[in-house]
């Protein structure tokens, strides 16, 4: 049995009377390839925000490798190995692709606060970032400002930044949104090259990608876990089909 990397126990979040996460108990094992699906407004991104510390839960707890990290700030959770991408690109638009990834790598290597050497001479940081850029087939754009890139290419930069943090748990919030379908294999190839012990949780509406990627799927509806199981089980679940996949799926 795989070791549990990330776990939530009875996670709840309310905004006033609106309950957006309801008693979510969830487990992500080392090496998991897990997908979180659900209709719009189901609370998927909220759940990611609770996992990363961007939001604090109203009740319940988040555990990383057995340690309760519920009260830890976002930056400290990142240092412990949780990295994420955002549903809407959150990039340094005025900087080049290389500089974007370098910022993440520098933070991971503990060089982000260094004042002694020019960033351009940190070969350890640059080589690491360049490797990730190559992995996501962004080499040709490495010297271009991110704001000048098409949206789909920017999505890949989002992922390169997250990978630059060398995470133990990688949370991808609709990573393929905006990536031309012909290029979505780049994303899957990049995930395939990750070390096997990294857990990946993906939120995605592209069911084709979800079923190619995931070994396990959780369905979230109205802030609560509706169903969980292997892709075949989820695809065969009539209730899931009716609330989310539609009868044609």
């Amino acid at each position, binding site marked *: 049995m795989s070791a549990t990397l990330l776990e939530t126990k009875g996670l709840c979040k309310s905004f006033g009377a609106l309950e957006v996460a309801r008693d979510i108990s969830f487990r992500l094992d080392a090496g998991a390839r897990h997908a979180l699906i659900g209709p719009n407004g189901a609370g998927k991104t909220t759940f990611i925000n609770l996992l*990363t510390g*961007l939001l604090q839960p109203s009740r319940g707890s988040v555990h990383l490798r057995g340690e309760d990290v519920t009260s830890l700030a*976002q*930056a*400290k959770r*990142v*240092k412990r190995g949780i*990295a*994420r991408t*955002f549903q809407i690109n*959150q*990039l*340094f*638009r*005025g*900087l*080049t*692709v*290389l*500089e974007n990834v*370098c*910022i*993440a790598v*520098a*933070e*991971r290597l503990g*060089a*982000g*606060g*260094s*004042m*002694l*050497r*020019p*960033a*351009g*001479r*940190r070969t350890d*940081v*640059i080589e690491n970032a*360049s490797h990730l*850029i190559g992995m996501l087939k962004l080499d040709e754009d*490495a*010297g271009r400002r991110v704001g000048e890139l098409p949206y789909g290419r920017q999505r890949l930069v989002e992922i390169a*930044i997250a990978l*630059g*943090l060398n995470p133990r748990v990688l949370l991808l919030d609709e990573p393929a949104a905006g990536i031309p379908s012909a290029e979505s294999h780049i994303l899957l190839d990049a995930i395939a090259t990750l070390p096997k012990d990294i857990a990946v949780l993906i939120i995605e509406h592209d069911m084709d990608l979800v079923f190619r990627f995931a070994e396990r799927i959780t369905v979230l509806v109205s802030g609560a876990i509706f169903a969980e199981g292997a892709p075949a089980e989820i695809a065969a679940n009539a209730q899931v089909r009716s609330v989310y996949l539609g009868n044609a799926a």
Partner: protein
Amino acid sequence: MTAATQLAARHRFQWWELLPWIAGIAVFFAFPNYLAFGTQVLIAILFALSLDLVLGYAGIVTLGHAAFFGAGAYTVGMLAQHLGWNEPLSGLAAAALVAGAIGLASGYVLLRTHGLTLLMLTLCTMALLEEAANMGAAFTGGFDGMPGLKFAPLLGMFPFDLLFFRSQYLYALLVLFICFALVRALVYSPFGQSLTGIRENLLRMHAVGAPVRARLVIAYTISAALAGVAGALFAQTNAFVNLGALGLERAAGVLIILILGGYGRLYGAFVGAIAYLMLEHTLAKAYPTAWQIGLGVTLMAVALYAQNGILGLGDALRRRLGGQRAP
């Protein structure tokens, strides 16, 4: 050229970066009658450079940067007036320490906030210091300030002469050079890159695990210390300090200088200070009673048509001609 070599090249010292310093030395020989004005320009550059670090690079919006300029000026003034500590270089160090300490304390509290709240709080900090200087007349000279300050010759050899600013000019040029080298190293370092990251996307910087607030407080402290050095230079070279060193007019003036030159670009402080003070000087000479109208119209034109400052105009021109981006 790969992106990595492009990045390394951009951070390397470029030959043209010698030009401002050659020009600075040339002014010393070519315009001996304008050295007092030149010294004010150099001090304004240093002050604007300190603001550029927080505003241009870290994106901290402040209207109270004169608080640190004034803190530095009053530090050397009070040390000279009351303790007889009038050695210029150690005075600069004391000013940097005091202004840096105020920057650290106020930054630790203020930088929990953003936007308009931060803007108002920086303004309030400056107003509090100004009022403290006004009320503490026994130490600060109150409304009259401290005129006729006396400072020892620089390195025991070069006296400050209020008629011929030769020593003052070279002193200010040297201090500016050292401070500029420090700021340049800082903004091109990973620390500087992370400040730019904070300015560009705060959410993402948190998500890469950067200790955002600590970085901002450090930048604010360093910037405050540099502004303190500028203020100390002002007091030492002019032999006086008064409430004007801490006022809104000075804070707004340095902001205008930076916007005029172009912020977040290192050399915007140079271009802005020279342009602003020369414009002010020329207009005041030509229209002694209405020069501020000319200044206002010019600034409006810049705000409307050159939103990235004078350097931004040059940048746009270069892009049009197919060149690369400015450093």
